[in-house]
């Protein structure tokens, strides 16, 4: 798939500033935007799914917020059967997420799987199957090339927290 996004990943010139460049990229990636047809209608957004979009398109943002951000989030955690099943340390971390916006899972991934992931990243870099983006620091989307990175990415514990 031709992707201006891939080109832009390493490009820092003037084209990056033209909104039309992104519209072209959106047209080249139509299948990744089709879900927005239904969503734009649902949220009353009357514009093309390929057009630029920003917070100015939502002058009256929805009042729907994640339940973990609601004042009664801790009560809801207490009431959850899933919450009861977590060990004490995880329950405390979940409360910390509500209060402070983060949680820590100590020693969550084992040494062997991390060593495998580091080896995968080194190999992908050596074979130039992945590279650093324009920041010079970030390697984007390694999960598409490394089975181990993909397994890390899709570890479901995150999704249930």
């Amino acid at each position, binding site marked *: 798939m031709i992707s201006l996004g891939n080109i832009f990943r390493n490009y820092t010139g003037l084209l990056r*500033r033209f909104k039309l460049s992104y519209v072209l990229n959106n047209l080249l990636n139509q299948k990744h935007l089709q879900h927005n047809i239904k969503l734009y209608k649902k949220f009353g957004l009357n514009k093309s799914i390929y057009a630029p979009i920003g917070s100015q398109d939502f002058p009256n943002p929805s009042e729907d917020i994640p339940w973990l951000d609601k004042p009664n989030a801790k009560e809801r955690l207490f009431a959850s059967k899933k919450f009861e099943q977590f060990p004490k340390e995880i329950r405390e971390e979940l409360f910390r997420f509500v209060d402070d916006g983060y949680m820590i899972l100590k020693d969550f991934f084992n040494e062997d799987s991390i060593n495998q992931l580091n080896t995968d990243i080194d190999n992908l870099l050596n074979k130039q199957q992945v590279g650093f983006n324009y920041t010079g620091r970030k390697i984007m989307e390694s*999960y598409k090339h490394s089975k181990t990175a993909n397994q890390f990415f899709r570890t479901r514990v995150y999704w249930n927290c």
Partner: protein
Amino acid sequence: MGKKVIPFHTINFIEGSEQRAHSDFIHMTTEPRGYLIAAWIALEDCYEGNGPLFFYPGSQRLPYTLTNDFSSGNTRWMLGANPNRQYEDKMAEIINAKSLQKKHFIAQKGDVLIWHANLIHGGEAIRDKGTTRKSMVAHYFCKDVICYHEISQRPALLDIND
């Protein structure tokens, strides 16, 4: 979160990011707001010298900072010359004004930090030049919300079947 979560992308780092304080929500914005979550994985031990991750506990409760809150320079046809810098300057101003307290995550290999869409965080300067701080961060949107990049005004490209 209250909605099904879908994987968006991963970013790997070999060195620390040295990225200034920011909230992920400016780069991965949703309507309704707040339906993004991130997980950062330490792929080697961190210490004060190799540019550990830092964050400001409780900062997720601040209002979301969006392009109307700083001089992005965006026009109808073009993006501003350096909206990221303008945004980061604004975040530094907020941190100072609110006297937010910085915390470092001195992670051990295998540890995971999960953070809220609006938690202000960044990468500390690499004091010991040449050292690595291998890590991977993964971002997840929620399904059935509109996802986009506030600064560049791009809708997020999603593999919605995941």
